[in-house]
């Protein structure tokens, strides 16, 4: 897809978000609510023990993780029912006749959506949190650059996950239950609430078989300095492998879905 067109789509999608200013304010409150709950929870858990480090995390480290993983997650906000709605109202037919790749158009729409949430929600939440909580982020230029790469890779994985879930609308009339499954797995296995380091041993093989930890957990560990720069390299390689695997799934499903597509008249 040509980059100019891509950027155009991104900006249109971004502007659509700007119109809901009140929603945006509520969104900040909503994100902060989670930050508040989980930082309180970790503080309560840690306060029960004399030992200051649990599973490699000091209280400062775990509070930093809780805030930043939420910040990353909010930055990844996208509308996961776009494809479903397009199938429902029949406008998917228009997408099929367009000469541009549907996947990249969908990606552009998501990027615009997410960029808005990043600026309007992530940034204020992180700024407020820096003042309210005792957090520590190592500021090394190289680390930040590596984080950005890993962050983008994680973002692409989340987009692909949503794309796959959305394509199910080609086969099923109701996809809300699938979205709920997706949400449950994503929340649990991505380390979005509890970092993978705290997971019991028997769950770790399952976690390692799934792509979710590469969406939130690993990018965040790079940012907070838990992963060394050498480890970061292998993290990014693993992310790229998952992008290839999920990319293949996306294109296979899209190919099969196009043939299967049933549009309810309307």
């Amino acid at each position: 897809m040509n980059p100019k067109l891509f950027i155009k789509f991104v900006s249109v999608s971004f502007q659509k978000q700007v119109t809901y200013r009140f929603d945006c304010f509520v969104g900040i409150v909503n994100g902060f609510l989670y930050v508040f709950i989980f930082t309180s929870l970790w503080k309560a858990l840690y306060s029960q023990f004399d030992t200051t480090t649990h599973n490699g995390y000091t209280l400062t480290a775990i509070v930093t993780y809780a805030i930043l993983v939420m910040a990353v997650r909010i930055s990844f906000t996208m509308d996961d029912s776009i494809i479903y709605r397009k199938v429902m109202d029949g406008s998917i037919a228009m997408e099929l006749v367009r000469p541009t790749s549907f996947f990249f158009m969908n990606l552009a729409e998501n990027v615009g959506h997410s960029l808005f949430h990043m600026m309007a929600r992530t940034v204020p939440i992180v700024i407020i949190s820096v003042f309210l909580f005792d957090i520590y982020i190592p500021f090394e230029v190289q680390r930040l650059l590596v984080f950005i790469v890993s962050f983008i890779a994680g973002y692409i994985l989340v987009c692909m996950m949503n794309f796959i879930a959305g394509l199910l609308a080609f086969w099923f009339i109701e996809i809300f239950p699938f979205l709920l499954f997706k949400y449950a797995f994503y929340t649990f296995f991505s380390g979005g609430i509890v970092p993978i380091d705290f997971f019991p041993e028997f769950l770790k093989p399952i976690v390692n078989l799934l792509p979710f930890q590469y969406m939130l957990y690993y990018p965040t560990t790079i940012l907070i300095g838990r992963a060394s720069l050498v480890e970061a390299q292998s993290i990014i390689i693993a992310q790229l492998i998952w992008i290839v695997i999920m990319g293949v799934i996306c294109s296979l499903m899209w190919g099969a879905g196009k043939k299967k597509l049933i549009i309810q008249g309307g």
Partner: protein
Amino acid sequence: MESIKIYLTLFAISMKARMEYKTSFLFYIFAILTFYAGQFGLLFILLNRFHQIKGWSVGEMVFLYSLQAFAFGFTNLIFSQLVNFDKMIVDGEFDRVLVRPLSPLGQVIFSKFEVSTAAHLIIGSTALYFGSRYGNIEWTFYKVLLFPVIVTGGVLIAGGIRLMVAAVAFWTLRNRSLVHTVIFSSKEFINYPVDIYNVGMQFFLTFIFPIAFINFYPAHYFLDRSGTGLLHPALEMGTPIVGIIVITVSIFSWKAGVNHYQSTGS
């Protein structure tokens, strides 16, 4: 009397509509159960590692969860239409409600049946069983008698809050993000015992946004934890009274909203 018959008919029709797709219904229930299992799973991971949260053991936490599941389950059954109430206003569907010779609130409430209640009751009962067993609850006659009263009080609190936030749409029209934050995200607060939060937040969740009465305060009574909370022990019995206050205030704000209502004209 006549109107009650009409409400019941409305209710039966919406129930039939939902049961039309049986597999989809069962699948939906299963998805909701998975979602809660994930949430519960994370709690278990934390409790497995830290044994308790501020003196609340696994069993006691599970009991806390059961009270919440029952209250929200019945709230979903009765007050589900209020979640998307702003859509009724924006689409002008509420105009139709107003011209009928029945209470607008009654019509709105009975126009939708929410199947997720079944899932909540499964979770609530399971949690109640394990919570009683591992939380060492001695079920005295009074406790058995009080349990449904407390759940009803919780439904009045949660339902009243839904009604109040839905009524905001009379003034603001679209209020989806507000509804989402106030109804769903705020639930997250009482997944954990409220005493993990700072005093200001405890005060807020007790007197201003009193969801702590849904599970935290009454759980003290059932678990014989009297005197461990921050505030006066009398609050343990406060749920029904708080419920009545919340629902009364919310009905007044709903009525004020109906009086203020001017159609969008769409």
